[in-house]
C-alpha cells in the first residue's frame, strides 16, 4: 500500500522535497538482493521488500520528526548508512527506508582521544581525520567502507586492530539516540552536558539497552551521533599510498613492520596466539589472506600485488613450484603488524616476535617480506582498505562456521572443519574450490587478547542459481556439524533469527516458537520487556530478538 498523501507530505515537509522519494526506480535501488549475503543471512535468491519511500534526514531533529510521523501512522522504519549489509534494509511492505547519507560530520577531539561522528562517516574517513592528529580507530572486519557509527553502535565489531584497540563495543563512548518512539536521549557524559568522552556517565548509560554485546542492528530507533574512542597512531599524518592500481602499497617509516607468522601445526599456531594474548606486542593481528583459501592465498597475493595479473592467471600461478613452496610455508599462518611508539619499543617488539616464534616453532614467510608485498599487506591491513577483497574471487561470499571462542577450543577443530568444506568443494561445485581451510579473522576479538573471531570464507556465484542453492545446502551442513560439536549457531546463520527466509520480519509468534527452545530464554523475554518500554509500536523490525515472557518454560 502506498503512503497516504498526507503522510508523504508530512515527511516531505520535514526533510524537503529533494530529500525524499517514492519513485519506483529510487525505491528499487534500496532493496538488498539476499544472494549477496554480507553479514550472515542467506544466500537466498530474492530481494528485501520495496520501501514506500526513501528519506534522507539531515539532522537529529529531522530524524526525530520522521520517527514521530512513523509512530503516528504505525509505519515501520529502518535507518541505513552505507547499505553494505542486508540488516540495514527494511523487512516489511509498509515501511520507509532512512538513508543517513546527509549526516556525515566528524569532529576529532584529540584531547579526549575520541571522534564525535554521525552515521555516514565511514571508517576510512574517520581514520584519515584521526591520523592528522596522531590517532587511529579500530576498523572492524567489515572494512573501512563501513559506517563507524553503525558498526560501533549496532553490531559486533571486532577486527584486525581489536587486540590493540578493542572491539566496537569497547570503543563506544557517549551517544545520541533517537528512541523508537521519537524521544531523543544522550547517553554517558553527553547526557550530563559534560562532553562526549565517556559512555557510562555522568549521565545515563543505557549501553545494555542501546547496544549490548552484538548490537541491535538498527532495530531500536536511530543512533544519530556517537563518540568513538581513538588510539595512538605512531605514523605519518596520512597513509602514504603509492603503486599502481589495484596494487596500492604504503611505504611507512621503520617503526611499522608487517609479518606473516607461520607454524608447523595448529599447536604451534595456538601457542603463538596465546602468548600474544598475554603480551602487549601487536598493533594488529589477523589471519587475513587465508580468506582466499589455503590453496590459493599465495597466488592471490601475487595477483593482487601485480597490476598486470588477473584471475585467469590463477591456474598458471598454482603450478609455479616456487609459489607452491611459499604457499606451503604459510599453510598455517596469521598476519601481524607491530608499531613502535619509540625506537626502543620497536626493538623490544621485534625481539618479542622472534622469541614467540622460537617458543611456537614458527617462522616468518619470505614472500610476505618482499618489499612490494610487505608494503601492500601493510597498507591493506592498516586501512582495511579495499576490504572487499571478500568479493574478488566470485563476487559473492558468506562467512560460515564462525568459531569465535577460546583458542584451545577452536583450533583443534580447524582441520575437521576444513575437511568438511573441502569435501563440498570437491564433491559439489556450488562453492569455489579454494582448499578447504579458508578460515580468517581476528587473533583477538577483544582488547588485549582473548576470544577469537573467526569465520571461513565461502565464495560462490550470485548469478548462478545452482551456486546459491548449493551454498545454502553447504551452510545447512556446517550448521549440522556445528551443532554436533556443541559450537552453537553457524556464522552464516547469525541473522536468520532476525529476518525470515523470504526477507520479511518475523512475527512475534515465529520468534516465540524458536526462542522458547533457547538454553536461556529469559534473555529474550527480558528483551521483550525492553522493546515494549522503548518501542511500543514495534516499528524497528525483528532484528531485535524477543520472546513473549509468558512463553518462558517453567523452571527456566
Amino acid at each position, binding site marked *: 500500500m502506498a503512503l497516504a498523501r498526507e503522510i508523504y507530505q508530512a515527511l516531505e515537509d520535514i526533510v524537503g522535497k529533494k530529500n525524499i522519494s517514492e519513485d519506483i526506480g529510487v525505491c528499487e*535501488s534500496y532493496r538488498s538482493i539476499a544472494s549477496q549475503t554480507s553479514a550472515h543471512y542467506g544466500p537466498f535468491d530474492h530481494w528485501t521488500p520495496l520501501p514506500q519511500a526513501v528519506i534522507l534526514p539531515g539532522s537529529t531533529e529531522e530524524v526525530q520528526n520522521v520517527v514521530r510521523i512513523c509512530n503516528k501512522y504505525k509505519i515501520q522504519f529502518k535507518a541505513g548508512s552505507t547499505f553494505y549489509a542486508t540488516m540495514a534494509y527494511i523487512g516489511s511492505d509498509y515501511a520507509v527506508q532512512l538513508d543517513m547519507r546527509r549526516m556525515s560530520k566528524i569532529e576529532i577531539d584529540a584531547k579526549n582521544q575520541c571522534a564525535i561522528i554521525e552515521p555516514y562517516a565511514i571508517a*576510512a574517513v574517520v581514520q584519515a*581525520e584521526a591520523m592528522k592528529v596522531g590517532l587511529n580507530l579500530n576498523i572492524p572486519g567489515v572494512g573501512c567502507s563501513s559506517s563507524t557509527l553503525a558498526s560501533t553502535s549496532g553490531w559486533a565489531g571486532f577486527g584486525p586492530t581489536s587486540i590493540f584497540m578493542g572491539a566496537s563495543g569497547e570503543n563506544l563512548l557517549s551517544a545520541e539516540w533517537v528512541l523508537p518512539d521519537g524521544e531523543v536521549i544522550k547517553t554517558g557524559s553527553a547526557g550530563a552536558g559534560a562532553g562526549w568522552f565517556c559512555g557510562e556517565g555522568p549521565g545515563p548509560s543505557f549501553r545494555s539497552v542501546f547496544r549490548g554485546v552484538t548490537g541491535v542492528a538498527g532495530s531500536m530507533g536511530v543512533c544519530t551521533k556517537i563518540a568513538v574512542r581513538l588510539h595512538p597512531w605512531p605514523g605519518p599524518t596520512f597513509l602514504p599510498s603509492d603503486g*599502481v592500481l589495484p596494487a596500492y602499497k604504503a611505504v611507512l617509516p621503520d617503526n611499522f613492520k608487517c609479518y606473516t607468522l607461520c607454524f608447523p601445526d595448529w599447536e604451534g599456531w595456538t601457542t603463538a596466539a596465546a602468548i600474544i594474548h598475554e603480551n602487549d606486542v601487536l598493533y594488529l593481528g589477523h589471519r587475513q589472506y587465508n580468506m582466499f583459501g589455503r590453496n590459493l592465498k599465495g597466488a592471490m597475493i601475487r595477483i593482487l600485488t601485480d597490476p598486470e595479473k588477473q584471475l*585467469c592467471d590463477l591456474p598458471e600461478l598454482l603450478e609455479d613450484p616456487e609459489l607452491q613452496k611459499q604457499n606451503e610455508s604459510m599453510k598455517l599462518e596469521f598476519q601481524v603488524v607491530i608499531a613502535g611508539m619509540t625506537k626502543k619499543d620497536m626493538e623490544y617488539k621485534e625481539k618479542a616476535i622472534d622469541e614467540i616464534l622460537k617458543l611456537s616453532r614458527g617462522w616468518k614467510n619470505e614472500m610476505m617480506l618482499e618489499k612490494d608485498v610487505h608494503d601492500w599487506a601493510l597498507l591493506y591491513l592498516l586501512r582495511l582498505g579495499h576490504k*572487499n577483497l*571478500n568479493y574478488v574471487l566470485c563476487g559473492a561470499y558468506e562467512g560460515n562456521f564462525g568459531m569465535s571462542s577460546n583458542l584451545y577450543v577452536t583450533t583443534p577443530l580447524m582441520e575437521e572443519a576444513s575437511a568438511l568444506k573441502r569435501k563440498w568443494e570437491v564433491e559439489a561445485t556450488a562453492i569455489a574450490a579454494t582448499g578447504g581451510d579458508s578460515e580468517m579473522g581476528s587473533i583477538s576479538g577483544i582488547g588485549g587478547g582473548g576470544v577469537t573471531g573467526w569465520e571461513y570464507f565461502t*565464495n560462490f*556465484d550470485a548469478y548462478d542459481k545452482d*551456486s546459491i542453492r548449493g551454498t545454502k545446502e553447504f551452510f545447512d551442513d556446517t550448521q549440522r556439524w556445528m551443532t554436533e560439536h556443541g559450537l552453537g549457531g553457524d556464522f552464516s546463520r547469525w541473522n536468520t533469527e532476525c529476518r525470515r527466509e523470504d526477507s520479511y520480519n518475523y512475527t512475534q509468534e515465529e520468534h516465540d516458537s524458536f526462542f522458547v527452545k533457547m538454553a536461556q530464554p529469559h534473555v529474550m523475554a527480558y528483551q521483550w520487556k525492553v522493546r515494549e518500554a522503548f518501542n511500543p509500536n514495534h516499528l524497528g523490525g525483528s532484528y531485535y530478538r524477543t520472546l513473549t515472557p509468558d512463553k518462558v518454560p517453567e523452571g527456566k
Partner: protein
Amino acid sequence: MSLQDYRPMMERCSMCLNCRWIPFDKIKSQRYGQNCPSIGYYNFNTNTARGRFQMAQSMLDGRTTYTDDVIETIHSCTACGACDMACKVCRYNLEPLDHNLELKAHAVADGKTLPGQLPVIENLVKENTMLVGAKKANRMDWAEGLDMIDLFKETADVAFFAGCQYSYNKDLQKVARNAVKVLQKAGVKVGTLGGADNCCAGRALQMGFTKEYNDQSSANIKAFEKAGVKTIVTPCSDCYHAFKRQYPKSGSTVEVLHMVEYLDRLIADGKIKFTKSVPMSVTYHDPCHLGRLGESFTPWEGKEKKILNQVHTWEPRRPRYTGANGIYDAPRNILASIPGVELVEMERIREYSWCCGAGGGCSDTLPEFSSWTAGERLTEANATGADALVSACPWCKNNFANAVDENGNKMQVLDIIELVQMAL
C-alpha cells in the same frame, strides 16, 4: 551489447558501494573522499553504479518503468568512469561505466531522453557539431590565417584536430591557434582536414545516442583514410578518448596523441625551449577522458570461463581498463619544465580525480548538477592555495570558468597550452 547482456554484472555486483568513493587507500580527508558527482549531488543510492545496476535489473524484470526521476537518474551520469576504476580496485569482472552507458543507450532507444539533449543531437545531425547554434560552415574559423597543410593535398607530420569547443567557442579558439603555433615553432608540419572532419561525437556516445555517434565516427574515419592521416594530435580530451578508445572499435588504425603527450615529447627532445619564467603556483586537473579513460583500446573477443568451480574469468584473457595507464605524467612533466611554475596537487588526482561535471552531456542537459560538480573541484583547487587551475581539456576549462566554489569564489582557469605559450 544490449542491456540484457549486462545482467550477469547486475547480479554479481557485490553491493559494496566502493563506487561512491575514491580508492580507500587514497583517502586523505573526509572532504575529498567521494568520487561520484551523481550521488554527490542527488544523494540517493540510485545514482551510484550499484544503484544503476539495480535500477536496470528492475527495469528488465518489469518492476521499474520510465518515470521522470528514472530518466533523469539514467542521464545524470557524467560518464567520468570514477566508479569504474574504484570498482576495479576490488573486482576483476565488472564494467560499471560500460553498463551506465548501455543504460543510457537503452533509454534513448526507448525514446526516453532529457529535453536538453535533443537540440544538441539535432545540431550534431544537421551541422556535425554538438555545440548548439554552431554551423558546419564555420568549423575552420578558428584557424583563419594559420598556415596549416591541407592533408588532402600534402602530407604532414600530424593532423591537428581541434574539436568543437576549440573550433567554435570564441573564448577558446585562441588556445587552439596557440597550439598550432607552438607545434609549428618546434618544426612540426601540422596538417588539417580543412573542415572535412565532423565532431568526434564522443559526447553523443556518452549520452547514449549510439546511432548518431556511429554516423559521425564513420564519416570521420572515412575522411581520415581519404586524407591519409597517420597521426592525430588533439588538444581536446573528449576527442582524444573518442579517437583512441572508441574509434578503433570501428576499424580506425590512426595513431592518436593528446597535445600534452606531443608537447612532452618535443620538450624532452629539446625542440621546445622555454625562455620566460612564469612565476605561478598551479594545480592540475586530470580530465577524465585523458586520465583514467585515456588508456588504449585492445581488441578482444572471448567468453566467460569458470575455474575452481565458481571463479569467473575470461577466455582468452580480457583487457582490463583500470585507469592506471592513463595520461598523467605528460602534463605534469610539461608543468615541471616551465620555469617558475610550481605544481601543488589536489587530494583527488590521476586515476581517482574528481570530474569537472561537463561529461556525459551533463553541462548541456543538467546544468545545475554540472555546475555543482565543477564547483566541488574549484573548492578542492582553491584549498591548495594555487594561483590557477590548469587542465588539458576545453570542456573542463569551460565548465570551471562558469562555476564558483562552495564559498562563491571563482578561480583562474588555464589550458596547459596557454601556460606553455606564456613561457615561450
